[in-house]
């Protein structure tokens, strides 16, 4: 039986559980506070009886062990790894009072505490300890009369706060939209650059705003198993940036994106671009922000699919074509949309307890493990079906079938979900593969369109569409 004691980052154990753990250690460290107020520790081997909550041992020679105060028995273990350090860290301490028993003593266990990294992984242990770190910095700040905060270099902080590596989710569909427009005979490099930069600002604004609203609504604080792919940037939780500063950064990104959007509308504008721009802004901000809060209503995956699929890709396309719409970019956006939604979907698996706590009704919160894995398989399969059917009916060019090269990676992700479903840190490799799946699928689609462009230039009459 365990409970989380006030401020304790790992479960406090009852004495019996503590003694059961202590019995697994080859030696034990008896510790008490001597009459001068200093701790005294001596290693010995105790006979442990968890049923009776008792540990008995011979009296250590030459030392006076007190019977009138709490003493402790500690077990500690590491496994040295030469040239690296160590692993298999675990320790447990049981406190209680001693009674004399023959030539020795018996400790009656009253309470216990410990940590075993096999039970609570180090990263989770660290996350559970955030309140202690905050308390320490608050005390230091009060003592010095000036704020003392954790720090990161500006470069690392920018990378972490904006989640910059995830920008591939924007760059892929935007470049694809531009590439499709180029195969249709329109390409404006200035508009292309502005589109990539503007869309990136929307994405970065979304990332930062997501942290702000998830913090306000408690989801990120409740999550003690974040990974580098899930759980937000954590910069607010770690005290690296304040909520207000993050809100300011998100606003700045959105304002910059809005300014670029106005330039695009002024020089390459069309009703289609206006509609797509407004829809993109609503989907981006409404992802976590009230009153829409798509992700809290079970619509997060759809919002991400629409935002990072059709809206990004068609938006980039209509900037280039000055408002002319076509089915081809829409069909090409569907596999991209499904794979980006699957990034969110898989990343939500380790977050599901924190999300449920905060009222986020994501699909992994609502459905069972089997249903979630089936959902992944269906969505990934649908991406390939749309591609093949799109090529088959002549909407997509034949070289885009290169995307089928990612099928083995999709199978690898699918196979990795079940064994790691309840292990956030084991799932990290799967989440990494899943990010790669979206990136590689997008790149292969781009390569397909590059082939169309090159062959179109070399052999203008060559038809790369079926039928």
């Amino acid at each position: 039986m365990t409970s989380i004691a006030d401020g304790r980052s790992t479960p406090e154990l009852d004495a019996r559980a503590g003694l059961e753990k202590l019995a697994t250690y080859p030696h034990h460290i008896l510790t008490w506070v001597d009459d001068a107020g200093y701790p005294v520790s001596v290693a010995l081997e105790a006979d442990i009886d968890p049923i009776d909550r008792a540990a008995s041992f011979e009296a250590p020679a030459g030392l006076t062990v007190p019977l009138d105060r709490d003493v402790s028995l500690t077990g500690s273990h590491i496994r040295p790894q030469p040239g690296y350090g160590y692993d298999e860290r675990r320790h447990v301490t049981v406190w209680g009072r001693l009674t004399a028993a023959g030539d020795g003593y018996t400790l009656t266990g009253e309470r216990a505490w410990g940590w075993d990294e096999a039970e609570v992984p180090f990263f989770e242990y660290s996350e559970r300890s955030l309140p202690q770190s905050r308390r320490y910095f608050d005390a230091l700040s009060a003592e010095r009369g000036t704020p003392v905060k954790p720090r990161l270099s500006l470069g690392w902080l920018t990378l972490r706060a904006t989640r910059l590596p995830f920008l591939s989710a924007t760059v892929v569909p935007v470049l694809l939209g531009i590439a499709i427009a180029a195969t249709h005979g329109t390409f404006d490099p200035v508009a292309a650059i502005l589109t990539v930069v503007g869309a990136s600002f929307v994405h970065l604004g979304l990332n930062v705003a997501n942290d702000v609203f998830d913090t306000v609504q408690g989801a990120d604080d409740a999550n003690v198993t974040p990974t580098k792919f899930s759980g937000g940037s954590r910069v607010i939780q770690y005290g690296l940036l304040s909520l207000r500063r993050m809100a300011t950064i998100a606003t700045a990104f959105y304002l910059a994106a809005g300014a670029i959007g106005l330039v695009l509308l002024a020089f390459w504008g069309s009703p289609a671009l206006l509609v797509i721009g407004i829809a993109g802004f609503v989907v981006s901000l409404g992802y976590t922000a009230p009153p829409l809060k798509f992700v809290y209503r079970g619509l997060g995956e759809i919002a991400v699919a629409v935002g990072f699929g059709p809206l990004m890709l068609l938006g980039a396309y209509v900037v280039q074509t000055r408002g002319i719409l076509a089915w081809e970019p829409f069909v090409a956006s569907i596999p991209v949309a499904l794979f980006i939604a699957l990034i969110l979907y898989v990343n939500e698996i380790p977050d599901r307890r924190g999300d449920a706590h905060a009222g986020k009704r994501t699909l992994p919160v609502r459905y069972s493990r089997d249903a979630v894995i089936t959902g992944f398989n269906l969505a990934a399969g649908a991406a390939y079906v749309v591609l093949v059917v799109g090529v088959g009916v002549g909407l997509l060019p034949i070289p885009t079938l290169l995307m089928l090269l990612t099928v083995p990676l999709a199978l690898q992700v699918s196979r990795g979900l079940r064994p790691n479903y309840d292990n956030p840190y084991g799932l990290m490799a799967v989440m990494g593969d899943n990010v790669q799946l979206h990136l590689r699928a997008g790149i292969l689609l781009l390569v397909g369109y590059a082939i169309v462009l090159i062959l179109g230039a070399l052999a203008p009459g060559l038809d790369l569409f079926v039928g």
Partner: protein
Amino acid sequence: MPPPVEELLEAALVGELTVVDRRGRPVTYPLIPLWDGVHVYLTSSTLFSRKLEHIGANPRVALSITDPVAVGGRTDRATIQGDARVIDEDPHGGWERLLPIWAAKEPAIVEFLKARVALPLFFERALIEITPRRVLYWPDGDAATAPQVTELIGEAA
């Protein structure tokens, strides 16, 4: 410091730091002991800084080295009583002056530090500096034999 205890300090991958909580009870934490020839140093992340609060309220501590596995198979054991001081003027980088002797025991820490963006608060740290006062030494590691006691500064008891 008795030479065998210095050798134990230099070899130990882990020792057990015991501090005294506000109710006068011992609380023990496994930590890497670092010895510079004068003081014993330990470092603590602010994540696990309760021990630092205890030391701030009561500087009397003990460090024991008991695990033969952590000292390369040696069977002798020691407990060092002393007065601790928390050094936390610069939690971000002040502790890095001990990085060379820390890395000698845990080489991986250098690589972890390069990736501090992954776990920033782990590298917001304080130093614990222990001035040894009294050493208990068990040459054969057996509690059935009385320890050899060395007073280093006055008397602890």
